[in-house]
């Protein structure tokens, strides 16, 4: 089992400034899954509870000279502490800057010299070789090696299980609605957290997203209407605009044109932390049979409205119980 590559400018910036802060807030420990074409960070794919989060990058976006080989179709997976990985990235960057080496923030085109590889070492005071993801940073005058401890690489069976879970996680909801203002949604959810722990999320085929928290003393909610719809859509019935948000949602569910699920406020709030990765927009949808709430983040190519297909990020929130069942 071998893995060795050099980090690209874009890759190191993308991870350091955007994805590491976001993914660390979703969960500190995650799986890193490397294949011939992709590098992925996966949260909670093998243990059922918690927010599942899949961040996938084309290998060419993050790496140069990408070399991977394993007996398991060149797939390697292990878990690590994202805070330690982020620290290694930051220290590598700072060494390059301090030593007057290439500044990855400014000098686009100059060779970056952060090489990463998988290796085993015997740490001081131990007899057992331990696996590490090693960062070797070469400045003009010195080279610094930063080893990030990782778990033992997953066995063939575990990798198969991880791949199966990943395939499952790619299933798309039949209707997705686009939330244009991510900051507004995040701000709202942060405040709704004070009201209750359970949140009903309803999505209609007319493009309405309705969030509601209800306790014995208060019902509080927010409805976003006329959002862009992807997938199955329908026209809102006449007179629908004169109803309250709750009545509108109930009617849409009765007509089979909406779905509603209950999720944990804590889970939704965690998934919203993905905004630190600065996605350009987000789509919300409910999986068939109300299996989960799916949030798909989209990234545009810089300076365009074209989707950047080399990055994908999505979350699946476990459903506590189907609402209005």
């Amino acid at each position, binding site marked *: 089992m071998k893995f060795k590559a050099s980090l690209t400018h874009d890759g190191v910036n993308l991870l350091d400034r955007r994805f590491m802060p976001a993914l660390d807030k979703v969960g500190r420990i995650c799986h890193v899954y490397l294949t011939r074409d992709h590098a992925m960070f996966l949260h909670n794919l093998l243990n059922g509870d918690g927010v599942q989060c899949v961040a996938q990058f084309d290998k060419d976006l993050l790496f140069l000279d990408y070399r991977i080989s394993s007996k398991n179709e060149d797939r390697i997976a292990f878990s690590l502490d994202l805070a330690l990985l982020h620290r290694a990235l930051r220290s590598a960057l700072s060494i390059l800057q301090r030593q007057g080496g290439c500044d990855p923030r400014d000098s686009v085109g100059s060779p970056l010299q952060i090489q990463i590889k998988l290796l085993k070492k015997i740490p001081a005071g131990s007899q057992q070789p331990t696996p590490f993801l090693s960062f070797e940073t070469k400045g003009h005058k010195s080279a610094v090696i930063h080893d990030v401890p990782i778990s033992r690489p997953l066995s063939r069976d575990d990798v198969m299980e991880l791949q199966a879970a990943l395939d499952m996680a790619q299933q798309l909801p039949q209707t997705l609605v686009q939330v244009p203002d991510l900051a*507004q949604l995040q*701000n*709202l959810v942060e*405040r*709704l957290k*004070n*009201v209750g722990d359970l949140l009903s999320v309803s999505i209609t085929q007319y493009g309405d997203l309705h969030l509601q928290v209800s306790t*014995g*003393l*208060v*019902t*509080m*909610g*927010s*409805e*976003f*209407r*006329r959002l862009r719809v992807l997938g199955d859509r329908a026209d809102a019935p006449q007179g629908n*605009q004169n109803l*309250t*948000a709750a009545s509108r949602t109930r009617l849409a569910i009765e007509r089979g044109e909406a779905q509603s699920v209950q999720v944990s406020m804590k889970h939704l709030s965690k998934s919203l932390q993905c905004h630190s990765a600065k996605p350009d927009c987000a789509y919300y949808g409910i999986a068939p049979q109300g299996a989960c709430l799916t949030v798909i983040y989209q990234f545009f190519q810089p300076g365009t409205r074209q989707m950047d297909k080399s990055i994908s990020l999505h979350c699946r929130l476990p459903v506590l119980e189907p609402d209005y069942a």
Partner: protein
Amino acid sequence: MSSSPPEADEAPDLVCRLDSVQGMVDALSSVRWKRNQDALVEISEHGIVLIVEEAGCLQAKVYLKRELFLTYEYSAEGRPRFGLSLGLLVDCLNTFSSPGHAPVIEILYPGPDMQLILKSVDSVDVCIYAEIRTRIADTISWDCDFGPSRNNPLSFTIKTASLKEAIDDLEWPSSTIQILLQPEPSSVVFKGEGHGDLQIEFPYYANSDLLITFQCDRQVSYRYKYKFLRATTSNIAGSVLKDNRGSKLTFGRGGMLKIQHLVSVARPGIHHPHHSDFSGLQQSARIAYIEFYVKPEEDE
């Protein structure tokens, strides 16, 4: 008194619109001295009054007069009263305000199930709403009969920030705080005796920046429980301190202390360049009055 649920064609007792949610939050938070606190709300043609009390010794009232609202449609007979959780009301109102956006919200009472209903009305595509359950109002356990002690009421006005600072400082001796007013030399003295002694004196003529007005024709001294005095300033909104406002303290019959604060309920960032006097007048009219009544300690 509590009104009955509205019939389908009957207008609710109150429908009003507000464009300064943050001001309302500031005003209500000022009387929220603990997390879970019940409040009584009374609606009238003049506005809304919210009353909070504790242990029959401390009472606070927030007066939100109708001029603070963009629209105020009152259709009830009598003065409907209901109880609700103050904390919940503040948390719900907070949900409406977001940085850089001052929403217009509609307040309606009663809803179909006697709820207090709040909803944002400034966008057709995004609506935030809250339905807060109300309960039948408790009777107020004491009616603060605040008659002036004599013909000349004893009172002084002090910068709210200075009052808060003095009360915060008195936490150290804590327990009981004595407030002494004397005409010669004109001054107010706060004295704490407990774990140690601390005395804070505000001379009237020496520093008019602190003590703005002073009315006293004889020496008086009353004692108050520290925790009640503290409640009168502990949650005062930052905007009050920033606006450099004053608080008026008046001593009524038997030493009953009334503390009045002014909280701005103006919409932030409104400028009317062509009608500056008028808008200034409008803005100054948009003040919520907060009153605290503190009973003195009985002499042993």
